[in-house]
């Protein structure tokens, strides 16, 4: 028997792969073998360590030391110094890694760090190994549900937990499930919306890449709760690693009897299939997603009827976002009361964000609901890079809101964000320093919408195009003061008359940009 002295966890995600993570991994093993250390030091693949843009990232346990920008050229030195001689290689150490814990402010004002919920396993287990997920307590929740709970119990537990949908404006998940269980139907579906398309976010991708079984377990529990037979993961076509990992996870789960007929020898049968998206942001809207799943153009449907009553192929369909479903196993395993211990009274649990832009440590984080934007940027994101001043942030991606410094103290949850609540779901936080050109930022957002409007309704199709015409003029210093009013008029019409949330949400970035950065716009127009 070997006693493993060190574990090296190497982050294998889309970002690190491009930086040559596999080559570094091979070199590590080769180098370790050279010194005869291959039995003592175990090299393990894991999902994203939550660090982005820093090349190949790995962490050496038990010390818990992070290395970034590791290349194959660094490997001999790293092995010799750290693993042979026990001296961490200072030049590669990542000192400002984003927090991989949840920071809680105690009543005393002291900071306490707690384990994460959604990202619990991300960066700790090998996502391609079902045994590691099981060893980390995986599939305990579905077993508990099947053996000790009725579907109604499960729905009640989720309701009780106060979990709000993480995809959009925070609709209570338990309530949605309750509607689903009450809708009669011989066939029901669970769809996981993994068509993450909001620019500036990729949290769902990292959950899929880092802990695919957690999502499957969440879907299983949802399927059991609403008495569904089939689940679909509708996933962005660009997310090839996610697709690969979720497909492997499904196949492993099937071979373990965790998917398919009579799961864990119960009467519950459920299977999950992956469907690839084909590049349309609007398919993140649940009815457009369903249209796309049916093989059609992703045009949103009129609501009502809601998918819960008539969704995929006209059958009752529950659509939940990746992060929402990833919360579910922990809720069932630990109970609603435990879950409510996190977050605020009305918004329990945690929220996963990607903090990007001009912060010191961009990356993936998980915080308690209600954490202030200031804490997110300064505690988790390490503040503004290069000592520059904070100018503003775009929260929620394109369909999000621009905010200025006066909003830093806002508590990030579905209640406190009020009219900006819809921006919370995607978890995108793009931080901008003092040098950022806000006109240019808005221009980028509006071009995005023009490109992604589905074209079905006139308000969105024509409104996005006209907004682009106007902002292009303003950016080129050819705009007039009235153009700013025009933009507001157009977005007002779009907010009221667009067919789906895509068009309706354009007013958010426009009105917020004009609210917080009006002077900058005024300076550009004549």
């Amino acid at each position: 028997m070997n006693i493993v002295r060190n574990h090296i966890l190497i982050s294998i995600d889309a970002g690190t792969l491009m930086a040559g993570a596999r080559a570094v991994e091979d070199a590590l093993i080769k180098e370790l073998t050279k010194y005869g250390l291959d039995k003592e030091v175990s090299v393990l693949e894991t999902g994203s360590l939550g660090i982005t843009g820093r090349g190949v990232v790995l962490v050496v346990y038990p010390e818990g030391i992070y290395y970034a920008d590791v290349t194959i050229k660094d490997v001999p030195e790293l092995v010799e110094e750290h693993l042979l001689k026990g001296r961490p290689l200072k030049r590669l150490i990542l000192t400002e890694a984003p927090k991989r814990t949840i920071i809680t402010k105690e009543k005393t004002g002291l900071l306490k760090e707690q384990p994460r919920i959604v990202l619990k396993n991300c960066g700790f287990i090998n996502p391609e190994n079902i045994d590691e997920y099981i060893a980390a307590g995986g599939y305990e929740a579905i077993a508990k549900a099947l053996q000790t709970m009725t579907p109604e119990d499960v729905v009640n537990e989720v309701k009780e937990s106060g979990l709000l949908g993480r995809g959009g404006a925070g609709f209570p998940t338990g309530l949605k499930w309750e509607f689903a269980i009450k809708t009669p139907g011989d066939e029901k579906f669970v769809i996981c919306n993994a068509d993450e398309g909001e620019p500036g976010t990729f949290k769902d991708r990292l959950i899929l890449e880092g802990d695919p079984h957690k999502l499957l377990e969440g879907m299983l529990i949802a399927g059991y709760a609403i008495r569904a037979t089939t689940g679909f993961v509708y996933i962005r076509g660009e997310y090839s690693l996610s697709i690969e990992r979720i497909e492997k996870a499904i196949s492993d789960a099937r071979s373990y009897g965790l998917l398919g007929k009579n799961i864990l020898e119960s009467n519950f049968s459920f299977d999950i299939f992956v469907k690839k998206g084909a590049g349309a942001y609007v398919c993140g809207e649940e009815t457009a997603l369903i249209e796309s799943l049916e093989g059609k153009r992703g045009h949103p449907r009129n609501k009502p009827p809601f998918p819960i009553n008539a969704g995929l192929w006209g059958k009752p369909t529950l659509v939940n976002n990746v992060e929402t479903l990833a919360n579910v196993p922990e809720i069932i395993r630990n109970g609603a009361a435990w879950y409510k211990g996190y977050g605020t009274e009305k918004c329990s649990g945690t929220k996963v964000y990607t903090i990007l832009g001009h912060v010191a440590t961009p990356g993936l984080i998980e915080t308690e609901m209600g954490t202030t934007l200031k804490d997110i940027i300064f505690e988790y994101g390490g503040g503004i890079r290069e000592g520059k001043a904070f100018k503003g942030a775009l929260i929620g991606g394109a369909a999000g809101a621009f905010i200025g410094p006066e909003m830093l103290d806002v508590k990030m949850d579905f209640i406190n964000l009020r009219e900006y609540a819809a921006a919370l779901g995607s978890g995108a936080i793009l931080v901008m320093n003092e040098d950022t050109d806000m006109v240019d930022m808005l221009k980028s957002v509006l071009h995005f919408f023009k490109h992604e409007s589905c074209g079905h309704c006139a308000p969105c199709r024509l409104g996005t195009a006209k907004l682009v015409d106007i902002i292009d003029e303003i950016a080129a210093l050819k705009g007039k003061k009235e153009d700013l009013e025009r933009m507001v008029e157009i977005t007002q019409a779009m907010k009221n008359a667009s067919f789906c949330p895509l068009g309706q949400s354009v007013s958010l970035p426009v009105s917020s940009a004009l609210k917080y950065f009006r002077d900058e716009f005024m300076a550009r127009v004549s």
Partner: protein
Amino acid sequence: MTSEHPCQCAQVSEEELYPRLEEMIEQHKGKPTELIMALHKAQNLFGYLPKKAQEIISERLNVPISTVCGVISFYSFFSTVPKGRHSIKVCLGTACYVRGGQQTLEKVEKELNTKVGGTTDDRRFSVDVVRCIGACGLAPAMLVDNDVYGRVKSTKIMEILNKYE
């Protein structure tokens, strides 16, 4: 990583690929709801969606040809024009845009002497724009085939592209 592009190791003519297409879409026969999956497969096979492949899919899945064309033109993933051997996708999502995605694009266009949506004369590269590939942490990002390149600097672009024959 799964390859999104046809194998280039042996030069197979398009005509020779049709029997394979028929084989691949056999399971979708008569199932209009599987149109997008069939299109993904066809595009994997040909690198784009030739007219004849669209017609075969329309016929086999029993989807009107106008619907097939409508779906293809809706999704930015699908292309009906032959693409270069390698696809370059420059990300212009908000995060990339802010960090110079536009300049990256301009540089690529200039170096390859082709515009967005175009293919170089030697069919080596096709250039497209994407709106966020979920690699915002690496902004500005660029995809060549399935390889993500982050923090792309104008000066490094040719170095990257030279890796692709």
